[in-house]
């Protein structure tokens, strides 16, 4: 096992990794930017090294500074957490070259997963269902119309090189497609300097369901069941849960088996090892691969609380070359868990709300876990994403977890900044949410003040 672990991240996930590592007898090194010097994760680690000024490019994305911190402290492994350098194959390779173990998948697997169209071809060849669409860019509107006939309407036009919703538009019929195709082609040229446009089947209100994967470097690969993350705003997850209400109480057992088989097949196709997540869309009885994430997910605690697995602990053991001793048949679910991302933002308009945490009193209670990056008296700065903590609540059933969550959220006292706690309470009171009838457009129509 490693002797010293450098944690190349900040906030709640740095703290969480620190706690797990220390529990395994590994000493820890935190790294931090000038904006974060006062935060708990810096003082709780055994050592702390300043990376640079507040902007992420000068600190948490500054690969030379991170490597230098690892070398100067004698760390023999680096855990990247999520975000920042976690999916950076170049960083993983640089660690390897410096003789430091990168806690994550092999860099080659990361490269295979990075290009979405390549990843799609690879998993499709392995028998994983993908969103029906064109493999290559379309030369003209006529080709798009012909492709749409075989895919079926509505379709989504996507600019090659686009991302995050930029250069995407849906069409419900051939007339709309002609118009949208022209717009997308123009936008692709203007924004990305490339003319190419793809089309694929558009799902107006899908569910987002993902499968946790664990694999070692000795060929053993298992899934750790699914999570549902359909409650999103601006394509960012807000509430996650396990199990998906779609599969609760043994419902849709055949579909869930298909989902797990597809997730394992995708992970094998990428040559994956360590912890990863295969993301799918669900719509009208079908599941469709979207992408695989080469890292620990933000929402991994709902899996931990319902399976009893320590995912970060396994990440470290697997990275150290140990065998994954958990067998597939040992992975069993107990109860249900919900995770609420506590964002420093306006609960109605979703505007960012940085500022001082004048009061910060987290709740306690049966089944309540808090992964928090901050303490009372800290300041939430505008430099990084708005997530200040994750509240994770478990219960014997989803209904019990929901009631416990309402109590916990009501008891979470934060003053000095706005948070989305009122939004979470509205979601939990919403009859459609309580019925488990979720989709990624939920927040556009429900849980309004």
């Amino acid at each position: 096992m490693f002797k010293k672990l450098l944690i190349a991240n900040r906030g709640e996930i740095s703290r969480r990794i620190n706690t797990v590592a220390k529990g395994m007898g590994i000493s820890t090194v935190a790294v931090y930017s000038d904006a974060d010097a006062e935060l708990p994760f810096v003082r709780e680690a055994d050592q702390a090294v300043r990376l640079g000024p507040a902007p992420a490019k000068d600190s948490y994305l500054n690969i030379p500074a991170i490597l230098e911190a690892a070398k100067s402290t004698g760390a023999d492994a680096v855990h990247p957490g999520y975000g920042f350098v976690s999916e950076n194959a170049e960083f993983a390779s640089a660690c390897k070259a410096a003789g430091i173990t990168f806690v994550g998948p092999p860099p080659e697997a990361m490269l295979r997963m990075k290009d979405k169209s390549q990843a799609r071809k690879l998993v499709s060849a392995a028998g994983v269902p993908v969103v029906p669409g064109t493999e290559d860019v379309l030369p003209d509107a006529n080709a798009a119309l012909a492709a749409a006939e075989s895919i079926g309407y509505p379709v989504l036009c996507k600019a090659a090189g686009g991302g995050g919703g930029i250069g995407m538009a849906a069409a419900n019929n051939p007339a709309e497609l002609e118009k949208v195709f022209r717009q997308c082609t123009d936008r692709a040229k203007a924004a990305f300097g490339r003319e190419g446009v793809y089309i694929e089947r558009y799902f107006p209100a899908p569910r987002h369901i993902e499968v946790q994967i664990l694999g070692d470097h000795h060929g053993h690969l298992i899934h750790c069941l699914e999570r549902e993350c359909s409650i999103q705003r601006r394509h960012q997850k807000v509430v996650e849960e396990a199990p998906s209400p779609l599969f609760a109480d043994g419902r849709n057992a055949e579909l869930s088996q298909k989902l797990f088989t597809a997730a394992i097949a995708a992970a094998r196709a990428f040559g994956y090892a360590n912890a990863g997540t295969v993301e799918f869309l669900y719509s009208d009885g079908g599941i469709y691969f979207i992408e695989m994430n080469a890292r620990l997910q933000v929402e991994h605690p709902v899996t931990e609380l319902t399976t009893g697995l320590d995912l970060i602990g396994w990440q470290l053991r697997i990275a150290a070359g140990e065998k994954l001793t958990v067998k597939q048949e040992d992975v069993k679910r107990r109860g249900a868990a919900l995770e609420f991302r506590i964002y420093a933002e306006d609960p109605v308009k979703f505007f960012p709300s940085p500022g001082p945490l004048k009061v910060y009193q987290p709740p306690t209670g049966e089944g309540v876990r808090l992964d928090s990056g901050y303490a009372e008296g800290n300041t939430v700065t505008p430099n990084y994403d708005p997530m200040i903590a994750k509240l994770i609540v478990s219960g014997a059933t989803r209904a019990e977890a929901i009631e416990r969550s309402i109590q916990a959220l009501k008891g979470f006292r934060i003053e000095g900044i706005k948070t989305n706690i009122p939004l979470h309470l509205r979601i939990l009171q919403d009859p459609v949410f309580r019925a488990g009838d979720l989709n990624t457009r939920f927040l556009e129509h429900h849980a309004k003040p």
Partner: protein
Amino acid sequence: MADVAAHITGTVWKIEVKVGQKVSSGDTLVILESMKMEMPVEATEDGTVKEIRCKESQPVNEGDVLVVLG
């Protein structure tokens, strides 16, 4: 006359107008960046840009006047 203020604390990412430019209510004057989000600051009324009181990449607080319209 209208003082257009920052509605969030963050950094000035882009200034979209010049002094003397005519703007309509709802036009984007400045784009702020905060917590990995870009937030446009829009003209509150029709008018002309009289003064720009911020620079790109300058940190600003909620309530700071960014642009004066006349």
